[in-house]
């Protein structure tokens, strides 16, 4: 019954075109049999009368217009999932690459998922302690949040992510199970190995699912890699009630793959040659994070992207920032000062922290302290610029204190050893130690009662009033 088509019209990059097709569905999966070659799969991405454009997942090399036969499956792109995926590794289209067998389950899942109904969402409020001061104090991660790491080439984003994986208390309740879904999109082999190794060290290895598309793998699979991973995450979170941390690296490779396919399709480009639907496409990934009212599990999404040329206004970080709930920005300047993790806090932000910190969540003084640190550190930047011009000696007394605060803030609070796991109390106490360099009246963002309670250097405050 199934028809096979024996002639292709055009092959270009990851796309093939066929004509005289009688019945094709948009988004349907096709099988390509190549003479003396491997079978390939593809997906219908455009139908025009009887002509069909197909995006092939594996590489199109070896296909000629005559040597292959194409059949339509009538189904969208689906993968089967079961609890057995934990501890396994797959490629970008959900096939095992760890030597293990296929996953069998009657139930299959469309990797495109469906948008979560905003009415069904639960607003995320529980914070995740990562043990990293810059994140816990200033860009607090909330369970169910999507918080990307904006990095640059060569910066220590992989180490930071590994440390988060190692230390994050995803669930405070010991009964609850957590797992990690790792999607590697166009990554180098050594980066992927680094993550594998750090998962092993975090003794969570049998709770990690990996979907890996190496840098030398076909680019069309980069489009499906994150979707397979998120589908697995949704399954684990909303059917198996687990708390899932999804790590996705590198979004930049994903977007470049999207651009390559778009240009092969001869679409009208928008900014920097990226397709006009880049925003919607990224949203269809990021928005799959979250929590549901009637489900116990959660999906926390930590995408990593390297900003081309460290430019935060480049379309990839720019559109990402508009969709995600904040961003953790790594800075080259701090990295060059040999600080780890080089979190540049001023452009960093966690949109959900306002509802997940403070009394009843972390500690009563947390919101004010965070606010004050942001405000004071931004003042430090102004004073540093000034001291470049007039020299540090000529600064006023108070400005010199700010200079000291800047130094200590970077060396004590931001900087932290890879193995240093700080509790939120330690982090906040450290913050007070640093804030106490300033006289109390400079602390204009903190409630006077809290200053009374936590300020360390009372003499300092009294003298200057």
């Amino acid at each position, binding site marked *: 019954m199934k028809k096979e088509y024996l002639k292709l019209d055009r092959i270009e990059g990851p796309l093939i075109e066929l004509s005289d*097709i009688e019945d*094709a*569905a*948009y*988004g349907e999966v096709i099988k390509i049999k190549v003479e003396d070659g491997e079978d390939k799969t593809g997906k219908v991405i*455009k*139908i*025009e*009368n009887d002509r069909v454009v197909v995006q092939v997942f594996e590489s199109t090399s070896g296909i000629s217009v005559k040597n292959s036969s194409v059949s339509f499956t009538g189904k*969208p792109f689906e993968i089967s999932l079961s609890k057995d995926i934990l501890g396994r590794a797959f490629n970008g289209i959900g096939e095992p690459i760890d030597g293990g067998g296929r996953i069998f389950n009657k139930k299959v899942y*469309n990797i495109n*998922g*469906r*948008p*979560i*109904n*905003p*009415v*069904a*969402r*639960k*607003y*995320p409020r529980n914070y995740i302690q990562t043990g990293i001061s810059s994140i816990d104090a200033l860009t607090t991660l909330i369970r*169910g949040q999507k918080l990307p790491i904006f990095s640059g080439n060569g910066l220590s984003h992989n180490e930071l992510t590994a440390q988060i994986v190692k230390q994050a208390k995803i669930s405070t309740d010991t009964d609850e199970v957590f797992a990690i879904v790792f999607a590697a999109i166009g990554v180098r082999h050594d980066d992927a190995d680094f993550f594998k190794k750090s998962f092993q060290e975090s003794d969570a290895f049998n709770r990690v699912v990996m979907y890996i598309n190496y840098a030398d793998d076909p680019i069309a699979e980069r489009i499906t890699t994150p979707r397979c991973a998120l589908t697995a995450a949704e399954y684990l979170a909303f059917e198996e009630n687990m708390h899932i941390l999804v790590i996705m690296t590198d979004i930049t490779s994903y977007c470049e793959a999207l651009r390559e396919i778009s240009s092969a399709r001869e*679409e*009208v*480009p928008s*900014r920097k040659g990226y397709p*006009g*639907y880049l*925003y*919607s496409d990224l*949203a*269809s990934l*990021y*928005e799959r994070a979250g929590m*549901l009212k*009637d489900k116990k599990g959660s999906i926390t999404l930590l995408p990593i992207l390297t900003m081309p040329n460290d430019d*935060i*206004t480049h379309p990839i970080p720019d*559109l990402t*920032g*508009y*969709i995600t*709930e904040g*961003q953790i920005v790594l800075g080259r300047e701090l990295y060059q000062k040999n600080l780890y993790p080089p979190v540049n806090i*001023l452009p960093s932000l966690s*949109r959900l922290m306002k509802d997940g910190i403070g009394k009843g969540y972390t500690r009563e003084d947390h*919101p004010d302290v965070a606010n004050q640190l*942001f*405000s004071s550190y*931004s*003042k430090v930047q102004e004073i540093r*610029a*000034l001291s470049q011009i007039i020299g540090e000696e000529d600064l*006023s007394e108070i400005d010199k204190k700010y200079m000291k605060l800047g130094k200590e803030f970077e060396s004590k609070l931001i900087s932290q050893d890879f193995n240093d796991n700080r509790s939120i109390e330690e982090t906040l106490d450290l913050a007070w130690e640093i804030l106490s360099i300033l006289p109390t*009246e400079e602390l*204009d*963002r903190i409630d006077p009662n809290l200053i009374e309670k936590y300020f360390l250097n009372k003499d300092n405050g009294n003298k200057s*009033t």
Partner: protein
Amino acid sequence: MSNYQGTVIMVNGPVIQGTGMSDFKMREMVMTGNKKLIGEVISIEGEVGIIQVYEETEGLRIGEPIISTGKPLSLKLGPGMIGNMFDGIERPLKKINEMSENFIPEGIGLISIDTEKKWDVKILVKQGETLNSGQIFGEVQETSLISHKLMVPPKIEGEVIRIKENGSYTIEETLAVIKDQKGEEYELKMYQEWPVREPRPVKERMAISKLLRTGQRILDIFFPIAKGGTAAIPGGFGTGKTMTQHQLAKWSDADIIVYVGCGERGNEMTEVLEDFPQLIDPKTDKPIMERTILIANTSNMPVAAREASIYTGITMAEYFRDMGYHVAIMADSTSRWAEALREISGRLEEMPAEEGYPAYLPSRLAEFYERAGYVHTLNEQDGSVTIIGAVSPPGGDFSEPVTENTKRYVNVFLALDRELAYARHFPAINWLNSYSGYVKVLNNWYEENLDENVIKLRAKMLELLYQESKLQEIVMLVGEDVLPDDQRLILEIAKVMRIGFLQQNAFHSEDTYVPLKKQYRMLKTIEHLYNRSYEIVKKGVPISHIKNKKLFNEIMKMKYNIPNENLQGIDDLNDKIDEYYNKLEEKYSEK
């Protein structure tokens, strides 16, 4: 109504083509494919029509039918909208969630406001009466705050020939029948249908003259928005667009709020759904959810419906305006809407203009913002629609097409600033780049409702802030110490204004909403501080003595420490200022 049928011949994401469509009308709503996906005809050429589909098209095949509905994309406007959340084409998301758990499927069909719920209707007209278009013939208490007026739809009028009595009805029941002069009969129900892309008619547009109070200091005093006016809030990510929009939705003194989440985050809509029922409106003591309509087409929902969501919102706003209400609509974000236009235009392979946006972007923006206004309705009442649109310029660069073109059609421009946001100065509205075109027309309003000197005071204090920015440039080069004392005083006063007045804490119970009276008194107090200290600085008293930390601190904290309802503290503070500077003056004149 005859149903025509066409056939799908092309699918490209949300854009499809059909053939056999020569009987279809432009902008007609159609059902596409076996799943009956809802779409709209956007162009016709001979037999071939192009349709934008409001649902996911995956699985759609060539040869599937396209069925006409005979009417343009329209909304059912009637009781059941307030407090509810809809998608971009007015399908209730709560209902969808009951039908299909947690996720939004395609092919759920055309559902709208609840047709089964019974409402208590009070009929206001009698048999034999002649009704005009827009006339109110009944009312329903929709929430404790809003009385929903049942109006004769525009373009229809006539004599009442049958009428029901007061009682409990569903929206589908006919409440009255009227007969026009030609003898045609019309059934009046609790709802009316109206095409989203057509502005609802009014008797006449009126001049703008009233302030939309927002309780936000930088807006009400410095950059006021008027009822019936237009405003844009542009800003890069993280600068607080959504926060500002939420604050306006919560506290502005409109009767009805329509909040359109257009291509934004799902969690933000959830937050509104969780927060609003608990927030109490200071004017009415009722939860603000009872005056709010939410439209959510989040970024991962189909892109074509995102394009429609803005029109859905504004049509609902106009409908309530026609009842004589003052409505404010927040569109967050209009850039996502423009991008939806661009995406569809790209798939139609239209010739792109600037940055890939279609050439008709400016005219579409104009059409949208022009639907705002203060009007005299068909039923002789005053009503208004105020539009406040967020703009998300790529890279925070205001010179891009959406911001540039929006600027041409709005009167208030509230520029959000990344530097201020980084320093956690919120609302991060930059007072140097923002403007309001309503200051002059609101002068009378301020005089009558607040004080004669509001506009003068505003100008004086803005001037101070402007001087400060110039001085800061010098300070950045040579440090503060070299400035003469009168200029250093300006820096100090500007700091008091930044911290004590411009910054407003949305999470502080006293500061999140501030009544106009207190706003004015606060600014006046800062002016008083400036006047007194300036007099003395001119007499040669050094700045270190003039800047009394305790006093300055107290002024900066008056937003927290002086309760909104009891302004005695402000009088005391003014006395303290006088007392301190009188003493200082005495001390120095003795020398």
